[in-house]
């Protein structure tokens, strides 16, 4: 029987952990930037669209609010802050992003396609929110 033992220096493990922590932090910073951009690019009327963004890591039901019967002309900034806060909550729930291969940004409001491409809108064109995010963050 042959056996090979390789000793690993404790400081090596510490360095690996440090690199992992930095990658985790970088990823969270990047996702925070994307969240801010997503809500800033979003139009606000009832606030249903901007508060329907979610980050999904694995399983989980994404947010999706309809604008039907909701009051219009809502405060834009407060609705955007609410949308941003939702996304930050999603990230804080995904405590550790280590080993995660995919994080999805979703918007499941029923009129998300209308907002993106202007589908079903006769006068206003789309806002291309996801197209711009994809372009900026690739």
């Amino acid at each position, binding site marked *: 029987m042959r056996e090979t033992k390789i000793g690993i220096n404790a400081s090596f493990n510490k360095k690996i952990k440090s690199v992992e922590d930095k990658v985790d932090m970088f990823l969270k910073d990047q996702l925070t930037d994307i969240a801010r951009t997503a809500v800033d690019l979003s139009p606000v009327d009832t606030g249903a669209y901007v508060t329907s963004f979610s980050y999904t890591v694995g399983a989980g039901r994404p947010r999706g609010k309809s604008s039907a019967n909701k009051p219009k002309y809502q405060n834009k900034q407060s609705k955007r802050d609410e949308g941003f806060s939702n996304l930050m909550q999603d990230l804080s729930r995904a405590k550790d992003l280590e080993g995660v291969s995919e994080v999805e940004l979703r918007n499941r409001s029923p009129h998300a*396609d209308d907002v*993106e*491409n*202007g*589908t*079903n809108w006769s006068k206003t*064109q*789309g806002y*291309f929110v996801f*197209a*711009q995010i*994809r*372009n*900026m963050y690739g």
Partner: protein
Amino acid sequence: MANNIYNTIRAALETRLTNTLAGTDIAYENVAFSPTTGTLFVKPTFIPTVTQPATRGLNPQLLYQGVFNVMVNAPEGSGPSLADTTCNTITNAFAATTDVSIVVGADTYIVRIRYAERQQGRIDTPWYSVPINIGWYIYNT
């Protein structure tokens, strides 16, 4: 030239689209257009996103980038093939790594294509609409 660079980029992309789709109706931005029911038309939208320094130091060269969205609108109920053919023509003309050049005065500008992505088609009565997002960039002072 920085103030005019977006005009140049738009002109380069729209000229390429016009030449690619000779004979097809094109609804340019902010130009009155009445689509004819039953006749395919495309609607381009120019969307600049980020401008950032490409190098360090004073007066750096700038990287301009953005999206050129082309919405292909085929008649509803006519099947997907007409829209598919037009989409393929557009994505081939704007394939990734393609250079789109335009001459303005004595200068030649080259807009590079980073990607061309066709998305899911949807019914927008009386049209079947398919969006194509074309990512572009250019370095300029």
